[in-house]
């Protein structure tokens, strides 16, 4: 019993880690590779989740859509939708310097949340959307969990592979060049504004995909899921801890932070009952403190960005 339970729990955690890993990969495209301070991850996550839900869930009289499409369409739609939302936002906001971009994207996420919460005919309003299908949802509990976990990990690996490939390609090289020295990149003929927008939109699409994976895992979505603490800051901490600029770092960060976040509850459970309630807040405190410690002692993260060698994906010229 206990070992089955343990595996079930591990499967669940693995699924959540996979989803957060994808979020962190999306953020890495924006921040790690391009240097864009997006503090509104929750917004793109939500757009992806809602759109995928709307495409695949059964229809409901109080809102639009509900087309019962296959899940794959939901995922593609989520990516496309998040990208489409990101495009005008990026057009407007990417010209701001980083602090302003941060506050602007926090505002964007807040507006997205307000819209999803208020416009019932669009999003089911405060009650959200239920009845979202899950692939392998018909299986027995453990098996279904595990199958979905495997699916999420497969998607994570696919996204990882695709992004690695994209970053190793001339496109990624160019983005890093823009991040390192905007002026020189412009002088080398790179269209800075357009390329940044590309990275922003690409990152948003990946975040939208994570939202879609999430909604099919939960089979429902309500506006509470768009919480800045859970859906934005946790992701930031993952990326910073793991190592921004490094895709493997992003995934490692997701693993570590989610493990600490989830398992810290076992620790707080051991506290005396009268402080146990308050101890739940200490988790948040510890996450905040962890961020401070990383920033101070290891700002490049556990897996720092690698220098050029790896991205010159064939043997170096000197050895030819």
């Amino acid at each position, binding site marked *: 019993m206990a070992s089955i339970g343990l595996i079930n729990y591990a499967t669940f955690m693995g699924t959540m880690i996979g989803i957060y890993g994808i979020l962190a990969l999306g953020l890495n495209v924006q921040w790690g590779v391009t240097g864009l301070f997006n503090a509104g991850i929750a917004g793109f996550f939500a757009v992806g989740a809602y759109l995928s839900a709307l495409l695949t869930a059964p229809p409901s009289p109080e809102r639009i859509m509900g087309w019962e499409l296959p899940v794959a369409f939901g995922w593609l739609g989520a990516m496309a939708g998040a990208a489409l939302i990101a495009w005008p936002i990026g057009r407007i906001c990417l010209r701001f310097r980083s602090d302003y971009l941060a*506050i602007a994207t926090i505002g964007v996420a807040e507006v997205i949340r307000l819209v999803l919460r208020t416009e019932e005919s669009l999003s089911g309003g405060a009650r959200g959307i239920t009845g979202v299908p899950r692939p392998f949802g018909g299986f027995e509990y453990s098996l279904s969990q595990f199958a979905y976990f495997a699916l999420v990990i497969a998607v994570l690996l696919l996204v990882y592979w695709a992004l690695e490939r994209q970053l190793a390609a001339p496109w990624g090289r160019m983005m890093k060049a823009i991040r390192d020295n905007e002026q020189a990149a412009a002088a080398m003929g790179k269209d800075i504004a357009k390329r940044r927008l590309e990275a922003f939109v690409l990152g948003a699409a990946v975040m939208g995909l994570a939202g879609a994976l999430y909604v099919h895992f939960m089979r429902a979505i309500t506006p509470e899921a768009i919480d800045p603490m859970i859906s934005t800051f946790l992701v930031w901490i993952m990326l910073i801890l793991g190592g921004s600029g490094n895709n493997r770092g992003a995934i490692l960060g997701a693993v570590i932070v989610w493990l600490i976040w989830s398992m810290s509850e076992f620790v707080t459970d051991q506290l005396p009952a009268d402080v146990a309630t308050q101890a739940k807040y200490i988790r948040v405190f510890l996450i*905040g403190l962890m961020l401070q410690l990383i920033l101070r002692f290891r*700002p490049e993260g556990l897996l720092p960005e690698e220098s050029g060698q790896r991205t010159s994906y064939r043997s170096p010229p000197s050895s030819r």
Partner: protein
Amino acid sequence: MIEFFNFYVVPGIVTGSVYALGAIGITLIFGILRFGHFAHGDLATTGAYLALGATALLGLTPWVALPVAMILTALLAYGIHRLFYRHLESRPKILTVMASLGIGMMLRSIVQVVWGVDPLAYGSGIARAQSFGGLMLRPREIATLALTLALVAALLAFLRYSKWGKAMRAMSDNPDLARLCGVNNDQVTRLTWFIVGTLAAASGFCLGINTELTTMMGWSAMLSMFAAAVLGGVGRVEGAVVGGLVIGLAEELSVLLVPSPYKSATAFVILLAILLLRPQGIFKGKVL
């Protein structure tokens, strides 16, 4: 017409004062230390709760507890700087911005652990308004406005006439030259944090006394405070005050135009517009 003042303008100005006091802190940090301080709302929350703590522990009336809270918050702000931000000074500013997001979370959770999450109030009962020729004002609203005016006037006078106030302005204006004049960077930074902490406590206190104390109140107000600071022009104290009042009024008046749930978006829309159209703000602040 008088109703328009009573129910839209007066609340707008009271809320605006709260935003203004917060925005001054944000604008000073932006101007002198050159980063966006995302823990500012939670610093204000902490200040408000410290005042509550002072009323409970020392048996003070709220208005007497306020100075105590202001001093404690000033020390807290300095302590945060000392423990966390200072080590990031030589690094890219963006790291400090991130750190401040984390500090905000930490402050909030400390308040939640110590005081719990139920809304609390400085006192019970309701305050009926007095009529001033039809204009309805409550004593605490008058006090809020008076406090804001007094603090702003004191701060402006300090910046204008005192030696260290001038040093702060010099630091904001041209940090390299200020250093050449023998201004000690660390000392100005310390002073800035003290002032910022004091004002944040006053901001939180005014918010608390006009409504209730909740642990999320500062975080929710932060977007508005930032909008106020940017609207007034970064680095401009008088701009932050005007910006705060404008945002406060705009939020109240937005109800006339859009459904109430979108009230929270008002500040954001103004922020976006000002960043796009006039990034230097009303009072020609810095464009960072």
